[in-house]
């Protein structure tokens, strides 16, 4: 038999290709990690790693076992996430993930409407990294996410909350920062913030106007962003002045909080749809309550 810890150690070592680096990532002493892997090999009765002077590679048995070990860790993580979600539902709690400014600041009317009908709800917010891999796995840590919609999957549900123009955000020293409004033609050839290569390509592309250019930008920053904070960091630090594109309201909030940031609406870009995204199998009465509040808001907006 083998433990969850052993599987995690083995997967981390194969990802890092080096015991030393893996030990660092796992916050373990290197000899302890070597010993744990050796013990796993002894228990399985098969060698998983080939040791070289500069690192390790997988044997063919190791390759096959890696696939299974990853599947176990993913299934157990899913089980734990589901358990946490069910426990939250049991305790009248809801975890709301978001990208960009906190949704209670950007869209307070949604949360006051929700609170009014669900006064007992314990709401917690979690700043999510940009969507990577399968949306349902990315989403598993929260009950519902509030953001520009990531890749859709059959098991996911979505409810639009805000439809608004896209806007450019840039440092105030950027050449485009003095303009009060901009058109696509003005910005398509700019240097854009680069998103981490693991971030869903379509979602990342929305923020560099790939949908209007028909492909990625010609010039991107060398630093990758995986979170909103990293993205803002690059705006301040990039050696080449760079821009990115976000929903207009989010851009204006960034400008309010960080006076060195400038938001300029893009008149002719396709609009951004900020939505609630949740997993069908992780729905609860509070998720339904929040979705219901969003529906009432959008239908009210339509009437206006």
């Amino acid at each position: 038999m083998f433990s969850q810890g052993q599987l995690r150690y083995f997967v981390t070592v194969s990802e890092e290709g080096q015991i030393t680096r893996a030990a660092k990532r796992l916050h373990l002493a290197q000899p302890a990690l070597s010993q744990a892997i050796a013990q796993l090999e002894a228990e399985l009765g098969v060698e998983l790693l080939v040791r070289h002077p500069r690192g390790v590679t997988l044997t063919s048995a190791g390759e096959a076992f890696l696939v299974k070990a990853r599947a176990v860790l993913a299934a157990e993580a899913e089980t734990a996430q589901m358990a946490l979600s069910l426990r939250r539902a049991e305790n009248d709690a809801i975890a709301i993930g978001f990208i960009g400014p906190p949704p209670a600041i950007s869209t307070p009317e949604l949360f006051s409407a929700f609170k009014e009908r669900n006064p007992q709800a314990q709401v917690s917010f979690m700043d999510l990294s940009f969507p990577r891999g399968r949306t349902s796995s990315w989403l598993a840590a929260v009950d519902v996410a509030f953001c520009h919609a990531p890749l859709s999957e059959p098991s996911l549900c979505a409810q639009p909350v805000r439809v608004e123009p896209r806007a450019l955000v840039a440092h105030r020293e950027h050449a485009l920062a003095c303009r009060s409004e901009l058109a696509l033609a003005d910005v398509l050839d700019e240097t854009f913030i680069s998103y981490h290569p693991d971030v869903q390509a379509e979602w990342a592309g929305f923020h560099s106007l790939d949908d209007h250019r028909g492909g990625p930008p010609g010039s991107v920053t060398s630093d990758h962003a995986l979170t909103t904070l990293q993205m803002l960091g690059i705006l301040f630090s990039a050696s080449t002045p760079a821009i990115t594109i976000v929903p207009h309201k989010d851009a204006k909030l960034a400008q309010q909080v960080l006076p060195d940031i400038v938001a300029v609406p893009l008149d002719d870009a396709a609009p951004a749809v900020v939505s609630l995204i949740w997993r069908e199998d992780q729905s609860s009465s509070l998720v339904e309550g929040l979705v219901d509040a969003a529906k009432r808001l959008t239908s009210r907006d339509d009437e206006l």
Partner: protein
Amino acid sequence: MPPSASPHVTMNFKRGHLLYFVTVADEGQITRAARRLQIAQPALSRAIAQLESDLGFKLLERHARGVTLTAAGEAFLVKARAAVSAWSDALATAQSMARVRRGTIEFGFVGVPPGLDSPALLETFGQVNPEIDVCYRELAFPSAHTSSWIGDVDLAVCHRPPADPGVWVHVLRSEPRVVLAPKRHSLAHSRELSVADVLDETFIGLHPSVDAAWAGFWSLDDHRGEGPQRLTTDRAVNPHEVLAALAVRDAITTVPAAVARLVPDFLTGVVAIPLRDAHAATVVLVGHEDRANPLAETLLQFVRAAGDGDRVPSPGDRVPADGEGCAQAGV
């Protein structure tokens, strides 16, 4: 930036408890589940209560005659089942790799042991690969996921099981289907039957866990386009249970010709009758796509090579072409 990995979430429940919960949910009763898990019933009840307290929500509603799942229990069951099955798959893969080191292949079969079915082929394999030890393991009828059904073996031979992306399939041969009936059955004296003669008969029932399409093949659903009018209340999960049911029921089943050749030799109360116009059964060799087992690969290559030449004995050829042979076998 760390490479993407499954997020590590701590939730204090024991892996063994997940298996307990899944078994209780499947059996619908603590008592039956305890029997299947081979633990005492109070210990199982305590473990489930512990799991519920670790999770912070109820999984089961207890009734006088068993248990049902709460809504949260239903939602949790889906994930718990997937986790248990991923775990047993990893374990089975590890065991398969350990067998490679020992030079052993686990060869699964349903019905006729491959050694009786294709003796020449396996004898030759043994001569060519004396360092490989082939062990045979009888399997129950296929269930939903073929990869987990053959989880404990490296490869298996049987009528084509449900397709599964994790499983490779090598077609060995086609075999006619043959009717098996108890001697006192009204059809038992026929020398040969057509599909039309038997479609409305009562067939032996298989367990609901058996893949529905695979089970239906043996009650000729492929010819009828739906299940038979009447199935016995049996819940057979392997050929022995089908034969046991045949012995006491006024019902029939169909089997591949290779099975029909052997059965009447040891079950004198049962006769095998050729079925003239039924679609043939497809006997296949199946194995795991993703286990990287070089011994299983060697056996597959050997079978493939043999299939291209004349060396493969085709047991289908030895099936009696007329009722005479079968009737004799039945005596």
